[in-house]
């Protein structure tokens, strides 16, 4: 990555390491004042001030006068002209696309409804065309995109870049999305599961901010969790960590698409909930269920509450194993708010181990249905580095995160 790496231990290498620290913390936090930067990096305020001066002179950072609790401060962000990143979130029923600058300001956003069992070839093709269109609409070219982050509704094996488990996303099996899309658009692409990236976004700038350890449970068409351990995503060996949708709830239950029986998904996943309303033509999507529940329909509320109870049982096991400080509930069904959360909390408290401070907090996500998309952007920004010549570069081409 570094073409001319300086002698280890030298003054130059120390300065470079400090520079990297500052750029890293800005990638994580978006914008910070110089004082906050000193706190986040552990560098002295004088060092921070020197490096910021140097980096803004070379166009890597952008500074602006601001005020914090009445005092004058200098707010630092990564400079926009460094380049753009793109995020693509393929969920079970939607494709969301966004382009943002490196300072995490979204400059273009679009979405399309997708067919239930979408396939990799047509959807990647569509995504590439839409992305090209959007890049043009902000008067940029594809070459300005430094990295692309992609979220898929299935666990991804980082070693192969493919879906780790058969059955969960049939149209996308055996394909390295990073490689296929990377070749198509000639930009570096990084892929992860939607739960992991949603969790990343809520941890960086949402409801899980500041939590020592957090789990983001995504409740929608399927149920999965992204776990933040020690400040980074915990993926496991093959990326399957956090797939709580496939925790067995009923040993003799219905057959799940993963091949097992009575998984949480077969009881509380979107299709399972809607199946209960089979004879009702007005109940075809999770959105319909939410609208009904909000309107006070008793059966809709009951179905969502039962889903919450089942998820609470699986979440309790997750808490006992990982001991997170906070559980953030996201995904479409999370919009039901307390209708889902209260029974979930109740079930969790029945089966989870109680600590001195009580049980892990259960809160609704703050980023709504854009969490995963923002996670894609953050994930892409994480893979952008600034090299010794102050050029923005992307970590390694066609790699998965």
């Amino acid at each position: 990555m570094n073409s001319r790496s300086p002698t280890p231990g030298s003054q130059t290498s120390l300065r470079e390491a400090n520079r990297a620290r500052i750029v890293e913390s800005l990638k994580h936090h978006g914008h910070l004042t110089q004082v906050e930067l000193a706190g986040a990096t552990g560098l002295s305020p004088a060092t921070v001030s020197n490096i910021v001066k140097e980096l803004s002179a070379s166009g890597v950072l952008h500074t602006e006068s601001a005020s914090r609790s009445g005092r004058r401060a200098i707010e630092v962000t990564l400079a926009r002209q460094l380049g753009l990143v793109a995020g693509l979130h393929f969920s079970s029923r939607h494709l969301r696309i966004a382009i943002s600058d490196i300072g995490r300001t979204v400059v273009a956003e679009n979405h399309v409804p997708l067919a239930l069992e979408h396939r990799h070839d047509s959807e990647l093709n569509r995504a590439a065309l839409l992305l090209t269109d959007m890049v043009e609409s902000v008067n940029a070219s594809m070459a300005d995109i430094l990295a692309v982050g992609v979220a898929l509704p299935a666990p991804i094996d980082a070693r192969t870049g493919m879906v780790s488990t058969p059955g969960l996303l049939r149209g996308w099996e055996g394909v390295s999305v990073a490689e296929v899309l990377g070749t198509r658009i000639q930009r570096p692409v990084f892929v992860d599961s939607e739960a992991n990236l949603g969790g990343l976004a809520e941890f960086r700038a949402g409801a899980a901010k500041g939590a020592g350890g957090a789990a983001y449970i995504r409740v929608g068409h399927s149920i999965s969790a992204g776990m933040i351990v020690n400040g980074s995503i915990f993926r496991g060996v093959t990326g399957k960590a956090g797939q709580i949708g496939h925790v067995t709830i009923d040993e003799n239950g219905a057959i799940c698409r993963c091949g097992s029986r009575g998984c949480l998904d077969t009881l509380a996943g979107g299709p399972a909930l809607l199946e209960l309303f089979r004879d009702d033509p007005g109940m075809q999507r999770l959105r319909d269920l939410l609208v009904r529940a909000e309107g006070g329909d008793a059966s809709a509320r009951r179905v969502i509450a039962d889903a919450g109870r089942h998820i609470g049982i699986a979440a309790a096991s997750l808490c006992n194993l990982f001991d997170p400080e906070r559980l953030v509930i996201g995904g479409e069904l999370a919009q039901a708010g307390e209708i889902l959360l209260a029974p979930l909390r109740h079930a969790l408290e029945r089966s989870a181990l109680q600590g001195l401070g009580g049980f892990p907090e259960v809160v609704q996500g703050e980023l709504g249905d854009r969490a995963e998309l923002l996670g894609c952007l953050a994930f892409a920004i994480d893979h952008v580095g600034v090299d010794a010549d102050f050029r923005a570069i992307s970590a390694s081409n066609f790699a998965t995160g």
Partner: protein
Amino acid sequence: MPEKAERILRLRGIGKRFGAVQALSNVDLEVYAGEVVAIVGDNGAGKSTLVKILSGVHPQDSGTIEFFDTTTTIDSPTDARDLGIATVFQDLALCDNLDVVSNLFLGRELHRNGGLDEIEMEQRAWTLLRELSAKLPSVRIPVVSLSGGQRQTVAIARSLIGDPSIVILDEPTAALGVAQTAEVLNLIERLRERGLGVILISHNIADVQAVADRIVVLRLGKNNGDFRVADVTSELIIAAITGAADYSVKKTVPAPTLTAVAR
């Protein structure tokens, strides 16, 4: 108390003959409020004939049309409009030289003090377009300068001016690029959220599966399946369209299985 969706439209045993050609025979169709029903089929399956019967272009030879549980007849386009059935035909029928507002209110202009109430019309146009999250540069530019997706948007918005309960879209995404198709698909979602019944005619199975709740297959002028989107794969739909699988039995088909195709 569970309040089920209201049934807006019910066709029973619709037949239509053009000389020696039996275009439709014994076709059934139901549309509920807030539901997107896609009608798919090969060329000559009777999709367009069905749309023309519903929009009052020509009346059916046999069968009944029920609108909100009342039997009715649709003898002319005016009848269809008065009932609350709006149709957006493939050619859109927009006036290229007129601006967006004039197109929306064409034939239904608002008057004030003996003249046109341009301000009120423009305000209503903006409100409507905003509700549809439409991306238009201006409502005062001639329609000819808009993109294909934007023209489709204007045509759909125009159909909503008369407050219909059913909107029929005939091949809305044919001849559109990827970004414009996305725009139209999002627009169909908006119509659904407004509680309208939407009838979507399309050749594109992927688009249909993305936005429809139910798919009605026509083959050679007859029903060949009525599926909930959650129950079918694109293979099954194509099998029903081509006739490789036979679902022509009357009444709604229960969840089909793959063995039905194998047989």
